[in-house]
């Protein structure tokens, strides 16, 4: 991957939300590159800021309740400098979104065909008939049986899996180059989830679209994504290739997450538990390593004072130095005592 392939470049993005007259950063100075034709997963627990990130790219936040700074370069322009009207030319055409709950993401009073066509109305010059034709083609593409019939059905007449296919159809209607999928399979049954994952992968292969996959489910990440960015308390703590990450996660938070999952290997054993709770936005300690309070009694010296993301291997970035001293054995955390090998940087 070279710099020429970069589709989206997020630079120093800070998104703050208003809580009781004060603004708190849900994304705190974050950086991320998304390359062409790849799936990047943004992983974290509820409240970590992963959805806020996706919404920032699309300019979906409520303007009075949010402050955004930084840069979001997309195909040579900074989306943050765009007005709402200018953004409307990008939304749906260049970047589109898939939402979690197919039940609520569709307008209950509009036939699904019209909902798929709606974007084309604003982004293309297609005639009414052509739009309908295209909508039916897309229904076909997301593998909906009898697309002509489904075209004029209402959302409540379709099953959950079908509805999610409609949501995907809406997202790909104008063949965008980037899709932000916010928990696209969380509300679905497992067998349907598997099929939606396969569908998204196939669409990505065929349409050469990049996908930002926002999820809490490492299983889905493993099945779909090329790269992963783990988010904790508004910051990325680890970014890397999924394959390498799953075999050898580095940051204590990534490790803990992975070990807290039940799997074939830890059957009958206790699962790893992270101490404490995810700090809420307005109670967040913004100084130093944000994960420190959740690592059992670690020495200050293993953490950096102002932790930064560092590339420790090619394409594998980790925040803070504490990862060098954190291990999990039989799901129990082991923190090595600080020795003299103070991290010296690259």
């Amino acid at each position: 991957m070279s710099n020429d392939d970069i589709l989206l470049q997020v630079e120093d993005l800070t998104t703050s939300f208003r809580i009781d007259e004060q603004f708190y950063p849900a994304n705190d100075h974050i950086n991320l590159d998304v390359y062409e034709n790849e799936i990047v997963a943004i992983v974290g627990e509820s409240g970590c800021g992963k959805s806020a990130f996706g919404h920032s790219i699309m300019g979906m936040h409520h303007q009075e309740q949010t402050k955004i700074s930084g840069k979001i370069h997309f195909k040579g322009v900074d989306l943050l400098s765009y007005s709402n009207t200018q953004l409307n030319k990008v939304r749906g055409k260049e970047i589109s979104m898939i939402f979690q709950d197919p039940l609520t993401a569709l307008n209950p009073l509009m036939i699904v065909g019209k909902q798929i066509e709606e974007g084309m109305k604003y982004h293309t010059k297609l005639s009414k008939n052509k739009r309908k034709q295209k909508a039916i083609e897309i229904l076909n593409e997301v593998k909906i049986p009898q697309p002509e019939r489904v075209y004029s059905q209402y959302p409540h007449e379709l099953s959950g899996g079908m509805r999610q296919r409609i949501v995907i159809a809406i997202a790909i209607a104008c063949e965008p180059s980037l899709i932000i999928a916010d928990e696209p399979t969380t509300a679905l049954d497992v067998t349907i989830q598997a099929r939606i994952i396969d569908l998204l992968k196939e669409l990505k292969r065929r349409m050469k679209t990049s996908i930002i996959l926002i999820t809490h489910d490492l299983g889905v990440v493993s099945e779909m994504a090329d790269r992963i960015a783990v988010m904790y308390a508004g910051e990325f703590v680890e970014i890397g290739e999924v394959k390498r990450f799953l075999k050898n996660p580095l940051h204590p938070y990534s490790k803990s997450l992975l070990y807290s999952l039940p799997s074939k290997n830890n059957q009958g054993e206790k699962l790893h538990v992270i101490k404490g709770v995810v700090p809420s936005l307005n109670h967040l300690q913004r100084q130093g390593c944000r994960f420190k309070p959740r690592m059992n009694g670690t020495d200050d010296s293993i953490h950096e004072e102002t932790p930064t993301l560092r590339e420790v291997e090619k394409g594998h970035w980790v925040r803070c130095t504490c990862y060098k001293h954190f291990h999990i054995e039989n799901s129990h955390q082991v923190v090595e005592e600080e020795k003299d090998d103070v991290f010296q940087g690259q």
Partner: protein
Amino acid sequence: MWKFVVRRILIMIPQLVVLSILVFILAKVMPGDALSGLVETPGVDSSTIEDMRTTLGINDPVHVQYLNWIKGLSQGDLGTSYIHQRPVLELLEARLWNTVYLSAAILFLTYLIAIPLGITAGRFHDSLIDKLIVGYNYITYATPLFIFALLMLFVFGFQLQWFPTGGSADINLEPGTFSYYMDKIYHLLLPALSGALLATVGTIQYLRNEIIDTKMKDFIKTAKSKGVPEAKIYSHHILRNSFLPIAAFLGYEITGLITGSIFLESIFSYPGIGQLFLQSISQRDFSVVTALVMVTGVATLIGTLLSDIILSLVDPRIRVE
């Protein structure tokens, strides 16, 4: 669709039966009858009154009276007014239409005022304009109709003399002519406006809340993420969904209009059924009162029927079996 409507209409049959029984019982338990007032009249002895009661059927057993009444109802016979000595139906006919016109005018004006205000308040909620509209709502909600109507009548009718202060049309005009209808509308305007200004509360508040709710819905995010401009998001997605409860409210609204018309018609001396209702109660003309309550009840039922049919037209989810 037709199945839904047929079923919905069939449901009205037991409703009507229950309504008629209730109305009949209410009429029977009211103290005195049209002849009680004659008891002390010199020259009328009690046996004469008793005879009159028998001829009028007041002495029959209750169920016989009920069945007779129902029989009459089904043939369009609403009974005879004891006071006016005319069939109730005749009495009602002219006035009923006046009330229908007045109610329709109030409903029309209410929506004309409330819908733009509700939409504005919902769309720009928490802004200054929203606060003004909500303030207006509080004031109209707290204002009693009979005081407000009197005030309107005093200011616009008597002081400024912009509007007529009574009646439903100039008696010198030929019914059916253009100027006759214009005059009818002219007579309607002040009472209708008085009623409508206060009736807007419910609709504004519902619409405002519904729009604020709908704005937050996921499918609005979907629309935004498609690149739909904000104005179109409102016209294509938010408004239609927000109008659902307004449609559901229509039946209730109609009941409110009829109750409201009792005050309005009396204050503006507008010859409608509301005015007749008050007169009949004070004169114990119970056959008229019963008929009016029955008519009001039926109007309410028709209102809810209309609500349900409108809802089923706009909301596809209700249509399914």
